[in-house]
Every structure is written in C-alpha cells, then in structure tokens.
C-alpha cells in the first residue's frame, strides 16, 4: 500500500489518491481529481491485485466509477477489504519506470532505476548504484538504460522531464539511507514531459 506521507517527506510527488469506502465516496473523489481515474482494491489479502482483477483503469465518468466500485467489491467479496483507492490516471504518453532499493550485505543500500511495465522481468533494463548517489550518478543511471532513447524522446515523443527524474532518484537515495529497508520499490513511477509521479510503492523493512 502506498505510504503517501513517507514519499512526500522525501520530496517525491505522489499521484493524487483518495481512499473510498463506499460508491458515492469514489464518485466524489473521481470528480474532484478529474476523470479519467484508476480504481484499485485495497486489501491485505490482495498482493497481486491486477492478476485478480483488482485494478480498473481508465474510468471515464461518474456512472463508470459507480460500476467499477461495485465490480471490485464483488470480485473481492471473500477477502478482507479496506476500501477502493481512486487515483488520477497519468497522461497517455507517460512512461512506466521503477525506482527500487535493496540492502546489500557488502555495500549497504543500493538504488535501482529500471524500465517498468509488464515486461520488466524479460527486458531487465535496469541499473544500480550504491547510495548515496550524486546528481552525476543519477544522470549516468538514466543514460545507461538501454531504453534511454525513449526517455530522451524517440520517435517524436516529448522527452521526459529529466531534472524531475534526477530529483526523484536523489529523493529515493536519501529515503533508502534514512529508512534502511530490506527492499523498496516505487512501481510504477510515471514519467512524462511534465514530471515524475509515484503511483504505487512497497517496502519491506
């Protein structure tokens, strides 16, 4: 479950998210942040929520939001459910990235930057540094990804806001050093020309 105060404390920008316990709460939240939204079940039992149909994307209107809420509740009626998280959808052109961290027995906290998305384990387009990192390290990580040209704006795309990504990497580096988790992921981090927004995270102490 995304820990907003934790991410915000280190200066990371988190996607607007509101937890709804009931359908009308979800509609209100969606209207406030503006459609389209994503709706996600929040349940301690649902680790792989997308595999179990716990995530509905691209919800366009109040009636769709109501339907989505009921569908999610129905799918997880046998699980312990805390509510439904309503999140603003990232722009269409945004690129899914992962910023992760891991405690290494030799070097301490490592920070990772990688391309996200469903094929992350196939492409394994990732790069690591030992924390703390400098701005140059962060820039080095970005340019080392094989997919770096995509971030730079391949095929007529707008290049992503590199300064924002550097900022996010530096923020995660200080988070890792302070919190010292066994494992940590922001996945996905949506990056486009306007900035980088954390959509989900997990942390193992």
């Amino acid at each position, binding site marked *: 479950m995304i820990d907003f105060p934790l991410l915000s404390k280190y200066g990371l920008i988190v996607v607007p998210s509101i937890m709804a316990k009931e359908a009308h709460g979800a509609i209100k939240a969606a209207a406030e942040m503006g459609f389209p939204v994503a709706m996600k079940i929040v349940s301690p039992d649902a680790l792989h929520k997308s595999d179990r149909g716990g995530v509905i994307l691209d919800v366009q209107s109040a009636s769709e939001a109501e339907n989505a809420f009921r569908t999610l509740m129905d799918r997880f009626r046998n699980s312990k459910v805390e509510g439904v998280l309503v999140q603003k959808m990232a722009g269409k052109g945004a690129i899914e990235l992962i910023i*992760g961290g*891991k405690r290494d027995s030799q*070097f301490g906290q490592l920070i990772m930057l990688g391309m996200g998305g469903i094929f992350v*384990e196939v492409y394994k387009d990732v790069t690591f540094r030992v924390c703390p990192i400098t701005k140059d390290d962060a820039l080095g990580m970005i340019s080392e990804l094989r997919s770096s040209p995509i971030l730079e704006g391949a095929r007529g795309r707008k290049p992503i806001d590199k300064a924002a990504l550097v900022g996010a990497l530096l923020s995660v580096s200080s988070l890792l050093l302070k919190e010292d988790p066994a494992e940590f*992921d922001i996945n996905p981090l949506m990056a486009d020309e306007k900035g980088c927004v954390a959509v989900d995270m997990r942390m193992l102490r």
Partner: protein
Amino acid sequence: MERARGNSAKTGDSLAKMPQKIKNLSAVFNPSSIAVIGASREPNKIGHVIVKNFIDGGFGGKVYPINPNAEEILGLKSYKSVLDIREKVDCAVIAVPAAAVPEVLEECGKKGVKAVVLITGGFSEVGKMEEEKRVAAIANKYGIALIGPNCMGVLTPASRVDSVFLPIYKLGRPRVGGISFISQSGAVGGCIVDLAARAGIGMSKFVSYGNAAVIDECDLLEYFASDKETQIIVVYLEGVRDGRRFLEIAKKITRKKPVVVLKAGRSAAGAEAARSHTGSLSGASEAYKAAFRQAEVIEAATLEQLFDFAKIFDQVLPCGKRIGIITNGGGMGVLATDSIEDEGLALADISGEASQALRLTLPPYANVRNPLDIIGDADSHRYEVALNAFLKEENVDVILLIILFQTVAIDSSVVNIAIRASDTQKKPIIAVCTGGEYTEMHKRILESYGVPTYASPSSAMRAISRFVKYAEHYSKYNNTACPAPIKKQK
C-alpha cells in the same frame, strides 16, 4: 627514455597518516633484511624454494634462514629462532606448520619484525577461525603488517624481493614496470604473473593476500595509492570485506591512478534473488558493478582483459576518442573500424594536413583515408611516414598501429619505429599484431618497451574504450596538459 612524471606521487596521501600496519607494508615490498622461518634443506620443500628464490633472484639484502635443526641452508648460516639474529630483521616469510605459527609470530613481534608474509595454510579456509584470530591478534599487538595466511607470497621485481614459493623455472618473474597486482587467489595470481612475464608486461609489485587476516585488499589499495613506483593497480577479487570502504578508497585512488578489477564469483550471487522487482533484478554482482562504476574502477570480465586493460596505461593518456588506424592489411583495417563503432569510439578525420603529407610520400596506389592502408608491400619506412603524419594530425587522438609481420617487406626494424614514436609521448600508440611465433617475438619486444600489443582489433579497441573513458575521468581531477603522462618509466 625518462617519461615525465604524472602528479600521482605528489597528490597521493602520505604514508605518514596511515595506520602502522599499512606503513609497515613497505617492509614487505622493500625489506633490507629477510628471515625465512621454516627454511629447509630439502629441495622440494616450500621453505627451500623461498630461500633459493631470494638467492637466485639476486635479492640485495640479507637473508636469514630459520630452522631449529640446521646449521646451514643453501650456503647461508641458519638460525634456530629469529631472536638469535643480532642484526635487525625487516620482514619474515613464514612457512612452518599451522600449529607452530603463533610461537614464531610472537618471536617476530619481540624481535621487532615489521612485516610478515605468512604462507602457511590451514586457518579460516578450513574452518579454523579461532586459530586465525589468534594469529591476527599477535600481529596486531605488534603492529606487524601480516600478509596471509594461506597466501602465495609477494614479488617486487625492482628490489628482487621474491617470496613466491614456486620455482623460477616454472613460474616466470615479470620485468620491472608500473603495474601493482593484488590477488585474492594465489593460483590465479600466479598464472597471471607467469603470463605477464612471458608477454613482457612489467610489474611493480605482486601480492597474493590469501585469507587477509590482518592486511586486506583495502589496506593494499591504500598502500599502492601512495606508492611512487605503482602507476596502475590491478586487482583480482572474489569478494571484499567492507564494500563501503572499498568504494571510498577506490573513488579516491582512481582520481590519480587507474584501477582495473576482475571480480570473480558473479554467478553465485544470483542465488540471492529475492521476491520484489529489485530483488529479482539484482544480485551481489550488481552491487559490485554499481560500486565499480561509481568509483570509475575499470572492470575486466576475463583474465585476458585484466592485463589487456592494464597495460594500455603504459601509454600517455589520450585527449579524445578519435582513432587513427595504420595497417598493412586492408581487412584488419575494416575489422578495426567495426570495433570502433562497437566500443563507442570515433574514426578520426584525416582529410586535412595528414592526407596532404601522405599523398606526397605514399605510393600512388595507396588510398589515403582512415583506416590508412599502407598496403601489403609496406616496409618500416612507410610505417614511419604514416606514424609521423598521424602524430602531427590534430584530429587523431589515439593511433592504432596494425602490423602484420607475415609480409615480405616487414622486418624487425618496424619495432624500433613504433617504439620511437611511442617515446615521443605525443599520443598513445597501440599495436595490433596477429600471428604466430615470429609475431609473438616482436610483440614481446614492443611490450617490454611499453607499447601495448593486442592479438585482434576488437581486443585492442575494448582496451582503448576503457582508456579513453578513464582519461576523461582523470582530466576532471588533474590539471595536466593533454596528453597526460600517467606513468613514469624507468
């Protein structure tokens, strides 16, 4: 020819600030007297080979064999204990059974021996942790710089220090050079030293540090960072004891001297894979890779690359990545051009000054472009003309000199031409010579004069790309005129 001295010696951390045990390492590498504890009269015993190597190698200092049951070993007076020697003893090489080590080490401490090379095995590598701790405690009590236990010894070619317990006729000793080589494995270290000796690559020091009970890889790095004779540090690692310390020390050193590392045991780390994305995408090897990158350590993937990458630093650092290729075989030029692209280097534009000069002097059927094919009938003179033109051409940062020794017109004098061009220290000159015995012979001569040679354009270009990248890093921290000499050759 005396090369200009890089500013490495001046900016190096002075030894004075270092812990006693690191300071005492100078007694390991440059002792004026040495005791061999466990010296033996039996020719096939380690304790015999070590004494013999000191004598045959021409060590200039005193050698004291220690053996409770011998009067004389290899013509030298033998002592029962190091305490029986009246003169001072800088360093002791210990090759007695493990059980006897604490006692003789204690005696070394009492005698004021500053450094010990403990060859003896049978400690932590076979699970005897307490025994090793006891040895370390004795060494630390006296501030002894102890290398080992379970190590293969130390070489300093310049002062003929040689405690490597393998016979000289079986394991060649390298000439004096600027590379200091730290090896966690004695076996791998020994093979590499043997190969380096055969290839004509020079070495300043070699140390196999074994179990690292007292002196570990980081201590050796610190020592070599401040060692004036060391221009390049080469490390064979299986693991480091303290990753953060390694990273910090390596970061500092690479601003002054290149560090080339081969990290073994990459695949075993995969077992560490954890559940999360980050976990499954990383292993301990990722941590090493990350640390090497951050410290600007040059990582070698194989034993061959370890010295391929290290020996290139015999040349002055390049100002850029534009390569000028001279070849007497067209196909080799094409291969080299492909490798330039693979390694992210650039082909120099020689259409200006260089090409005018070359058109006047090369035969009319030679095509004046880069790669410059001076044709299969090229002799030494034609190489000289081409080299001079490329040395002058400001668009060329690195000269790749391909010499195929198989042709009729080529003879040994081309080696002199190459060495003379290298000695101008204007630009790095890297040779590619592919071939058999005749070629190998010439490669050895080139190597022994500091001209690095490679068996293929691709292996040369791989080394050049590391060289160019390091030069960029070096110039960030050193205000030197371009090209910067890193190495002082004796």
